[in-house]
């Protein structure tokens, strides 16, 4: 018995000021037929198969993006879920929350040109096996197209951290042109080394500035984002611990 006996369940965290939670829930429920539960930041996390930290402006982005969301009560449960190996994805503001919470290294600062950037962005996939729960269906070197929508997406970390991330294969998405070339011209925000997405050491926590939930139906211009969800679905099927978890919890 290895197959997931039921549909995957995702918890989508909602802070005051989050704005992408309904898009994630729409993809999970209407496109994929999963169960999605919106979890207010002071509520119980329950027992999901995966946790989504969506985009937006949690707590108004005051002080620093993600700085106050990090202290929201639900984050203790999200940290425990991740520490137990549970898959967590933070997109855009969710990525900012993950760095502030120390669940991923580095920080995200104001775009180098000071403008908000909303566009379709080619991204080069690297070392997808490092983030198998989220990128298992994608190939090393492949270029996908996802929307970006942010004013503070410039990834920074000290040189030693950047070197370690690359050495360990934990840079999994870089801003690129359509041919997959990483260059200053293809970099929409001045991120160090063109970094658009990274994973934690264990590979279960993915943070990325782009919005996979906004590229899951052909009607909106692309479906590459759906491949992250499909990767997760396949990964969950392979996890006996998850499959055997009782249905009544949560």
């Amino acid at each position, binding site marked *: 018995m290895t197959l997931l006996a039921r549909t995957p369940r995702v918890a989508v965290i909602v802070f005051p000021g989050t704005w992408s939670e309904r898009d994630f829930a729409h993809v999970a429920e209407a496109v994929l037929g999963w169960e999605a539960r919106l979890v207010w930041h002071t509520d119980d996390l329950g027992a999901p198969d995966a946790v989504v930290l969506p985009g937006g402006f949690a707590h108004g982005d005051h*002080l*620093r993006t993600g*700085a*106050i969301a990090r*202290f929201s009560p639900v984050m203790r449960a999200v940290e425990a879920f991740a520490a137990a190996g549970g898959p967590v994805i933070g997109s855009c503001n969710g990525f900012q929350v993950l*760095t*502030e919470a120390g669940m991923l*290294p*580095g*920080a995200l*600062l*104001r*775009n*180098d*040109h*000071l403008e908000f950037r909303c566009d379709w962005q080619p991204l080069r996939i690297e070392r997808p096996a490092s983030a198998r729960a989220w990128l298992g269906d994608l190939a090393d070197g492949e270029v996908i197209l996802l929307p970006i929508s942010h004013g503070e997406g*410039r990834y*920074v*970390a*000290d040189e030693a951290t950047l070197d370690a991330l690359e050495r360990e294969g934990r840079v999994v998405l870089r801003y690129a042109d359509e041919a997959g070339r990483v260059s200053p011209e293809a970099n929409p925000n*001045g991120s160090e080394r063109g970094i658009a997405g990274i994973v934690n050491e264990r590979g279960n926590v993915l943070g990325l500035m782009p919005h996979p939930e906004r590229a899951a139906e052909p009607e909106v211009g692309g479906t590459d984002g759906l491949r992250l969800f499909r990767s997760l679905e396949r990964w969950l099927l392979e996890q006996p611990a998850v499959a055997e978890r009782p249905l009544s919890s949560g």
Partner: protein
Amino acid sequence: MRWLAEVHVALRSGIADPEGQTIGSALRSLGYPTVSEVRSGKLMRIAFEAPDHGAAEAAVDEMCRRLLANPVMETASWELRADEQQDAEAANP
């Protein structure tokens, strides 16, 4: 007793500060050609209660480390003083 802390948060040197650069170029275009660098930051004035100076210092230091500055890209410095006016008002309402 009541204390007032002024906390200054700045980007670490070496971290690009596009906001400061933009302010600097605005100043130069306004007729201040000698402006060579502007670094932007945040100023927070915090009023709070603590029994003595040592406890107040420890509290501000902890506030900076836990919330006010992110050591990945920022540094914090602060000045602390007793809010004597407030204490006098409290003594003679």
